[in-house]
């Protein structure tokens, strides 16, 4: 039955990849696809979860924090924690690095199923047509997320649209398409594991590598194998390892940064996300006339840097993690935000809107939550590493809150508005 169906379609199909004889690799088959798909599922699962966690870490329900839109459903139903201080560096490091590690697995997975792209006829039933539509959405959104993520982490804004919004909505398309793909394909993968064993095919060396039993992706006219399945998986793993080594050092920070031979933020020292010049903050704006304006319950307070230095100071080692997947750990000294809340007359503040001297840009302001103000390690930092902040690091004063996304640690702070 199967053979007659295939023969009939071989006659009708256009030449080339639409004919089953075109496909020659003896490695393709449901077991190989199941293994690659399982590995890919774990990796993209990590990437998706940490991606949506990053969205939550920006606390879009507060003030003008929302970068996508303020009224998104299912956005925040928990307070982003303030500990450990490397929390955001970890989640975003996992996001970027697991994405890079997934890239070779994704390419291998697509290679393993590509005969399906050319199946003839394109759909035998309405159900197949519907499934192909979902697969199209899955491949398009996955490719979009990888391409835009990889370009964005390397400052190549070639796409010329709002990265954050487009990456977010593409991720929603991806999650929808992946969920339905799993509904359809998990049973197929489980059948392959039951039939062939989960790991048993890995025992086969090159000489024992034979095509899997008949299925849609198994070649009708296989060539002799040139690599075993475990060899192919090892090569894919080698590719993943190379990408990880090339980048992960910038996520860990410290001396490992320079091992990361292709990481955009591998340069030594204390990285600057955005210089004062790029933010249009001049020396004149932070001179003797600089005042930090505190608003809250009582009258407005205007504090000079000397007055800020006269307030109680604490010192903490805290990690700054960037959405681009790099981090840096520094020792910060400054006034606890809780102390400033008390002085503003709002001792148990529910939130604080932080404004910067930076004149433009959506990230010239950020709103912090109650748990972040209350944490004793949350500072209006005046010094780093035992010296005054440099202008590029936010002089005269910057926010530093443990676990907060890097850009929400506002630099060149001009106003703090506490609300009960």
């Amino acid at each position, binding site marked *: 039955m199967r053979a007659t169906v295939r023969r009939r379609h071989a006659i009708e199909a256009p030449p080339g990849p639409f004919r089953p004889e075109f496909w020659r690799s003896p490695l393709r088959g449901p077991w190989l696809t199941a293994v690659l798909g399982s590995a890919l599922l774990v990796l993209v699962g990590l990437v998706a979860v940490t991606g949506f966690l990053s969205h939550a870490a920006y606390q879009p329900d507060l003030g003008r924090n929302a970068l996508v*839109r303020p009224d998104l459903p299912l956005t925040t139903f928990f307070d982003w924690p303030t500990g450990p201080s490397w929390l955001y560096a970890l989640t975003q490091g996992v996001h970027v690095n697991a994405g890079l590690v997934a*890239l070779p697995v994704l390419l291998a997975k697509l290679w393993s199923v590509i005969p399906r*792209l050319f199946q003839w006829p394109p759909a035998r*039933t*309405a*159900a*197949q047509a*519907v*499934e192909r*539509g*979902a697969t*199209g*959405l899955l*491949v*398009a*959104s996955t*490719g*979009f997320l*990888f*391409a*835009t993520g990889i*370009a964005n982490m*390397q*400052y*190549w*804004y*070639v*796409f*010329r*649209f*709002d990265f954050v*919004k*487009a990456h977010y*909505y*593409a991720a*929603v*398309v991806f*999650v*929808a398409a992946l*969920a*339905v793909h799993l*509904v*359809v394909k998990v049973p197929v993968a489980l059948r392959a594991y039951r039939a062939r064993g989960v790991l048993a095919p890995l025992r086969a060396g090159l000489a024992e590598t034979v095509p899997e039993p008949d299925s849609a992706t198994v070649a009708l006219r296989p060539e002799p194998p*040139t690599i075993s399945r475990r060899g192919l998986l090892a*090569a894919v793993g*080698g*590719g993943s390892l*190379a*990408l990880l080594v*090339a980048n992960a050092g910038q996520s860990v920070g410290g001396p490992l940064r320079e091992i990361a*031979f*292709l990481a*955009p933020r591998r*340069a030594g020292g204390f990285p*600057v*996300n*955005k*210089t004062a*010049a*790029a933010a249009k903050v001049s020396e004149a704006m932070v001179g003797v006339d600089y005042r930090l304006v505190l608003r809250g319950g009582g009258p407005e307070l205007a504090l000079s840097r000397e007055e800020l230095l006269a307030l109680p100071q604490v010192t903490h080692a805290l990690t700054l993690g960037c959405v681009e997947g790099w981090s840096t750990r520094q020792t910060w000294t400054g006034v606890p935000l809780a102390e400033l809340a008390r002085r503003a007359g709002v001792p148990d503040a529910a939130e604080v809107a932080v404004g910067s001297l930076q004149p433009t840009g959506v990230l010239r302001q950020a709103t912090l939550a109650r748990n972040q103000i209350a944490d004793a390690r949350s500072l209006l930092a005046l010094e780093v590493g035992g010296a005054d902040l440099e202008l590029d690091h936010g002089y005269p004063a910057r926010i530093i809150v443990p676990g907060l996304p890097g850009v929400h640690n506002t630099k060149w702070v001009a106003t703090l508005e506490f609300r009960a």
Partner: protein
Amino acid sequence: MRSRYGASPLHLLAHLAAFALAAWALLQALQLGGWQRIALWLAGAVVVHDALLWPAYTLLDRLARRGRPAGWANYVRVPVGISALLLLAFFPVICGKGEGTYTRVSGRTWDGYAARWLLVSAVLFAVAGALYLVRSRPGSSS
């Protein structure tokens, strides 16, 4: 139902649910500035992989293996593949595509990325060559 549709009603319902959620997200995305470019990148992702990347590497692999003994293919395609993968993932730093923006925002420059990529590639080729030499020696077990 199954005979005409080709699967159970659950199959259809699961897909309709996914399509509805995806349609919501796509409609949101298509209201953004530059929505034409977003649509182009979504479609482009499929085209670039299925019509460029996959045919290119498949063709290169077939050409490289044609008429040659099967034994040495992997010594070439594994290091070439990893080198190409590094270029694919780090093309913007290797070719300096994002350097203007990076320098403008951070005040720093990117140095030596292309050189490090070439050096790492050279090491990969050298290691593969050494492995081939060792394993193809007369009397070697493999």
